[in-house]
């Protein structure tokens, strides 16, 4: 499915997307990927979509090289990866069922999100290396499973291959 980073503000109008979308361009560019960036997502039990493979083709148009380079110079690499994962999560949620992120809150040093009118919690994790994603994913999934008895989303993205996973738990 072809999607444009520049459309994130229309998909999720409650949040600010400028830095997040530009960070995604910076992270893909730095790893030598060219737009449209191919990113296969594994989708599991997502309402309105179900389970399956979702092949995202992410277009970078609308972000100048100067803007992306400035972001790369001013934001630490691991923070850029975290932001890029938020951008991918926003695109994947929209593509897999038209889900809208409508709220962000802080939880210590990190953040979580609310999705849709049902206010389902969403946590997002981004990693540079493919081999680091599973442990990060498990940490989020297990913590939310322990804490909540209602549905929640977890989205994980690694930018080495790249690939991602979006799942909903009931």
């Amino acid at each position, binding site marked *: 499915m072809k999607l444009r980073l520049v459309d994130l503000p229309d998909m999720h109008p409650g949040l600010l997307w400028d830095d997040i979308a530009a960070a995604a361009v910076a992270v893909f560019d730095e790893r030598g990927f060219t737009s449209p960036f191919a990113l296969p997502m594994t989708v599991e039990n997502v309402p309105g979509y179900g389970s399956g493979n979702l092949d995202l083709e992410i277009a970078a148009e609308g972000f100048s090289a100067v803007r992306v380079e400035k972001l790369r110079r001013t934001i630490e690499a691991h923070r850029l990866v975290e932001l890029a994962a938020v951008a991918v999560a926003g695109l994947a949620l929209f593509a897999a069922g038209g889900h809208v992120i*409508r709220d*962000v*809150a*802080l939880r*210590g*040093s990190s*953040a979580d999100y609310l999705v849709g009118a049902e*206010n389902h*919690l969403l946590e997002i994790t981004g990693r540079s290396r493919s081999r680091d994603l599973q442990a990060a994913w498990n940490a989020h999934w297990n913590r939310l499973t322990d804490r909540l008895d209602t549905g929640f989303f977890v989205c994980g993205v690694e930018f080495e291959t790249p690939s991602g996973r979006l799942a909903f738990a009931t």
Partner: protein
Amino acid sequence: MASVQAPVSDMLVTVKSREIQRAQAAERTGRRAEAARHFLAAAHLELVLAGDFEEAGDRELGRRSRISAASCLWRAGRMSDAEALFEELKASEPSAAGEIQDVLDDLKHASSGAA
């Protein structure tokens, strides 16, 4: 989490979320005074939202907003105010005390790493 209808304002949720994002953006680029201003604005809005969620019968979202408020205060440099809010929250919801302590420990760990 249960669906929340009125009296929780969508506009307030959006303004709060954007204040958090502005604060995070300023923090990422070392603009500390600007980050603190936006974190403080977000903290106060989270406290308003917490009350609204609780009035609407959603204790989970109310607790989430209070944890976010305390986290915003901490990241604005108001550590003692944040700790007081975390302690108040632990006392009012003993069953969530472990979860709340984990968030406080995370903030302390992040602060020591940044120092």
